[in-house]
């Protein structure tokens, strides 16, 4: 099986590679559209800023590549947000694969820190193969200042300031707002299920 992690100069892509290595999966980092298109599974990670990243994806043609993927594809963190329609971060039109909007957290009390950093509980909205081995209330690791609103494609939620999408699925596109590669055993179960799809 060929697993490709999209390498687009945004954030900590290597930690995804290492996480797969720990569960015995060899993956390749690549920014080559042909390699990405021919992979059995694609991971679209991301730590960074929406506007510049989208501009980069459009300029390099990776935006079209990602939109055209038919194989199971997992967006992580910014990767998940960019799969959506629109982000308030830099007023950015995203890949529009999943028709949901990305909004900025607004604190309503002084003890609500932004970004949302740390371990928080995920609750399931719909059954999805990704969370087959997980329990509701499992803790996952989040780092983000923007969130995807809840909607038809929300498979898991997290509650911070308000309930938001912790995970999404539409057709072959899967996504998590949290970092499975940094979420201990809970995250490893999710990555294994993605690889097993």
């Amino acid at each position, binding site marked *: 099986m060929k697993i490709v992690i999209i390498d687009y100069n945004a954030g*900590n892509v290597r*930690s995804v590679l290492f996480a797969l290595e720990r569960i015995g999966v060899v993956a390749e980092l690549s920014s080559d559209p042909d390699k990405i298109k021919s992979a059995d599974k694609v991971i679209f990670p991301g730590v960074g800023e929406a506007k510049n990243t989208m501009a980069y994806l459009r300029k390099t043609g990776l935006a079209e590549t990602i939109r055209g993927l038919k194989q199971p594809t997992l967006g992580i963190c910014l990767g998940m947000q960019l799969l959506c329609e629109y982000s308030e971060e830099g007023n950015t039109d995203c890949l529009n694969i999943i028709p949901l909007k990305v909004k900025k957290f607004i604190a309503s009390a002084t003890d609500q*820190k932004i*970004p949302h*950093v*740390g*371990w928080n509980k995920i609750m399931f909205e719909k059954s999805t193969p990704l969370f087959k081995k997980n329990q509701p209330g499992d803790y996952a*690791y989040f780092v983000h200042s923007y969130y995807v609103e809840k909607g038809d494609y929300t498979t898991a939620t997290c509650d911070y300031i308000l309930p938001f999408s912790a995970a999404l699925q539409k057709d072959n596109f899967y996504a998590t707002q949290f970092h499975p590669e*940094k979420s201990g055993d809970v995250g490893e179960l999710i990555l294994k299920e993605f690889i097993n799809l």
Partner: protein
Amino acid sequence: MLAKRIIPCLDIKDGRTVKGVNFEQLRDAGDPVELGCRYVTEGADELVFLDITATVEKRKTLAELARKIARHLNIPFTIGGGIRSVTDAGILLDAGADKISVNSAAVRDPALISRLADQFGSQFVVVAVDAKKVNGEWLVHLNGGRVATEHRLLDWVKESENRGAGEILFTSMNNDGTKAGFACDALAAVADQVSIPVIASGGAGSMEHFRDVFTHGKADAGLAASIFHFKEIEIRDLKKYLADQRIPVRL
């Protein structure tokens, strides 16, 4: 609910974990990656590695350490020690670090915080602040607490936030190594001053100290070293205790 984080801190010198009292009298506490893995198994939420080696080879060894940690650990970690530039930080990001911490270099050149945040995002930038109460006033110190600056603690954490810091790691030099408890009043003042998360450091000696730092001290995370290294407190026991005290923790 967002869990309060328990963070063991590993001070590294020449590739080994060390621990001193008030930044002096170093004791050996083992291989950092092995110790890190033990903490992951015991339920640590995150780890901080600070390299206190002072050699010219440092940049390379720090990157090698980051890569080794990233390969083995399945939770987030911060690495720091002598990071002076965007280039230094970029090498660590490429090696797999989730966050870097800057301390003295940021005090000497505050614009470094802005450059790091612009380049890598705020989530990557932890500003570590060592402060000491001198004549009733909390002042930022450099070089492991040996050199006083004119920066007032509350002004400096605000400036750090404004420049793009993603988190503040505040160590009270008065409390560090004493095991007499965290500087809860100063921590609460820091937490009120900024809207980014605050990691409390310095003074942990008992489970009650962690309860206090999350309640009175308003901290988002509690960091400690020797009590974990020498197994005076087991992380698992500590988290069970905190859960009993109705403090949200990841069990």
